[in-house]
């Protein structure tokens, strides 16, 4: 949704607990939130569960009449907290999927084309991305995969725009180093 005014109106409707508007909001945010969670838990099934949970939690929060000043930042906050809750609840060891750069696939219907592509130099980029520290990976995903603007990232991460630019620069450098090695 490129039109900022339309987005603001949509957010107002969502805050007023309009279910249809919330459906549109889901369409706008689900892929980014999914990816955000995926790079933290590295499991498709768990990512699906947590993503569903996030959107339900946001709706429930709004339904309780609680004020949400910044919906964009809020949904990422809920996603982040849900991931933390997930790890606490499961107490699982993080699968070291980062060593081979290939994430778990939930069922046999694997993305065959994707596997082929993975064997090309995209694989090195993905491996490099998975080998980054969480903070760097997060910002790279937000900026280049989810295509958030610097302002939006600043809201999500609760940082200044200047800090975001610096962090992005460092993250990109670290990714470059990982990929070269």
């Amino acid at each position, binding site marked *: 949704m490129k039109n900022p*005014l339309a987005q603001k109106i949509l957010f*107002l409707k969502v805050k007023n607990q309009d279910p249809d508007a919330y459906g549109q909001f889901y369409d706008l945010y689900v892929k980014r939130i999914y990816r955000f969670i995926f790079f933290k838990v590295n499991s498709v099934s768990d990512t*699906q569960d947590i993503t569903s949970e996030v959107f*339900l939690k946001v*709706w429930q929060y709004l339904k309780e009449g609680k004020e949400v000043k910044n919906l964009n930042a809020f949904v990422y906050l809920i996603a982040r907290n849900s991931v933390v809750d997930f790890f606490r609840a499961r107490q699982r060891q993080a699968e070291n999927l980062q060593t081979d750069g290939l*994430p778990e696939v939930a069922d046999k219907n694997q993305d065959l084309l994707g596997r082929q592509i993975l064997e090309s130099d995209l694989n090195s*980029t*993905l491996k490099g991305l998975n080998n980054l520290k969480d903070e760097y990976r997060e910002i790279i995903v937000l900026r280049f*995969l989810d295509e958030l603007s610097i302002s939006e990232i600043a809201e999500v991460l609760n940082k200044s725009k200047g800090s975001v630019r610096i962090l992005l620069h460092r993250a990109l450098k670290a*990714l470059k180093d990982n990929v070269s090695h």
Partner: protein
Amino acid sequence: MDNKKIIKNLKNLRSLEAAGAPRELWLLSNRETLMSQIKPAPAPEYQAAKTDGVYYWQYFSGLFKQKVLQPAVSFISILMLMLTYTAMASVASASLPGDMLYPVKATGEKVSIALTFENDKKLELQMNFVGRRVDELTQLAKKDETTEVKARKISLAVKKLTQDVQSVKDNLDKISVKPEDSKVVEVAKVIDSKTLEVEQNIALVHQQLPEEVKGEVAQDVQKAISTAEEAGTSALGVIVENHNSGENKVSESEVTSRVAERIKNVEQNIAQVQLSALQVSTTTV
């Protein structure tokens, strides 16, 4: 691999499941599940759904309040405060010691001095205010009031005058470390001349007061005159030092005439003191 290539690769990862792209089937089914969980029962007929127009109104009215109304209210508040203060200051400018608005006048003068940064300009301003003190004293002396009230107000006025003259002297002492500075000399000349006038005016006002009041304020008046004399003497000292330093900002004839004037004034003061002492001794006898 350069940045451009890396960014291009990152963007290409977007559509891959391996890089967190959700499956379309899952997206749709999850949406359905979510909507079934959040959609309420069909609303009764009499409840009209909110139209888009309502949301646009909500958004723009919020924006108007934030960007226009709140700043406007703040601006008007500040304007009202400023107008009120200006009106008060204008009325206060005519007030005399003992009047209700006199503190407003005094505060205004302090602010003016604080906002003047050059020392010589500060001193000039202070001497102007000393001139005001003399005017206030003259006006108070002419006012028709009871002895008690008049004595109290005159005492207040004289003490304020003494305070202001002392400030002038203190500031002059601070800046006179460089007597060769031409600005310092010029301001010293002004202080020397004006303090002579101040002493003479105070003495004159005192003489014209009713006897009962004269006695009440005699001590305060004496202190005011001696403070003015000290300030004048300090200023003269600066002028003489400048002349002696060879800077030639002050000619020898000017120095001579100023010193003579000062000596004459001191002699007059001594004579006045002797006369007052004689009057007191005559009265007691």
